């Protein structure tokens, strides 16, 4: 595959966009906005994948990440006191270390990319990525496919057990049903004395 000039330009723009939005994620006050910046970064990377002719992966990335980041934004709203960043805030710790580690990681990885020799074996011309992926999934890598299915089922069950209150694994938090409504009334959360038992269910 020999990319044309247009592809090079497109890649440059998308790469800059991906890095910029990726960086904005961590310096935006509004948490919701941060999740959608991350979505933009993912979309840029997805577009680069399409440029690399991995069309299905790129488009799947749009689809998957739109949903994931939507959920991410919802959880931001659920957990953050200041989800819209009306007051600027910086909730970071060990920032120096983190910056240094981040830069080191970047430098080392880029050095590897620049210095090492990779075999130059581009895609065959008549390659159809989606079909080959499908054949692979139903052929040699059947096991991966099956495993993924089972793991995802486990995830579903795990998610339900962990996040749903009426879990069958006991009344993990009986007290929370139904949510209390009187302001300042009896808290509906987990009473503290049952805490040990409660966490036991989840770990």
């Amino acid at each position, binding site marked *: 595959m020999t990319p044309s000039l247009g592809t090079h330009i497109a890649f440059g723009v998308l790469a800059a966009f991906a890095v910029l939005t990726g960086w904005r994620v961590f310096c935006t006050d509004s948490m919701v906005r941060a999740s959608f910046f991350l979505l933009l970064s993912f979309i840029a990377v997805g577009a680069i994948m399409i*440029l690399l002719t991995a069309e299905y992966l790129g488009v799947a990335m749009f689809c998957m990440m739109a949903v994931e980041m939507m*959920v991410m934004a919802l959880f931001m*709203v659920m957990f953050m006191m200041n989800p819209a960043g009306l007051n600027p805030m910086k909730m970071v710790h060990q920032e120096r270390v983190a910056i240094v580690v981040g830069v080191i990681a970047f430098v080392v990885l880029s050095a590897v990319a620049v210095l090492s020799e990779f075999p130059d074996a581009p895609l065959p011309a008549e390659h159809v990525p989606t079909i080959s992926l499908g054949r692979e999934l139903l052929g040699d890598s059947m096991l991966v496919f099956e495993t993924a299915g089972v793991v*995802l*089922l486990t995830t*579903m069950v795990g998610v*339900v057990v962990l996040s*749903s209150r*009426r879990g069958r694994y006991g009344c993990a938090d009986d007290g929370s049903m139904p*949510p209390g409504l009187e302001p300042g009334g009896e808290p509906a959360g987990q009473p503290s004395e049952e805490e040990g038992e409660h966490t036991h269910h989840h770990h």
Partner: protein
Amino acid sequence: MALLTLTTVLMATLGLGWLLQWLPARGQPKPTYPQRAPFLGGGSPDTHAWNRYHIRYYPMTLLLIAFEMEMMFMYPWAVVFVEKGAMAVMEMGMFLAILSVGIVYAWREGVFRWQ
């Protein structure tokens, strides 16, 4: 090329939509503060509307992520379905079984009822 076309359509329409909003708004007076207060039928709010919001359907959203990932495996499968015949059918059986178990379990646990 297809990507370029898509991007053009997307950006051009985005620009059009933005222009449609921006052009007529140029000469207009800036809304005053009372005008900008959220509409509550004459009532007034104490605070900003953005707050920590209890999204009661959150278990459903987590379930959806797992589900959707599973769907991502299905698209390539659909392409070779007819070609692979019986094996693909078996695959589909397993896939749907997994999903059904997931749904039935989640339903039983009341995930789709908002809490």
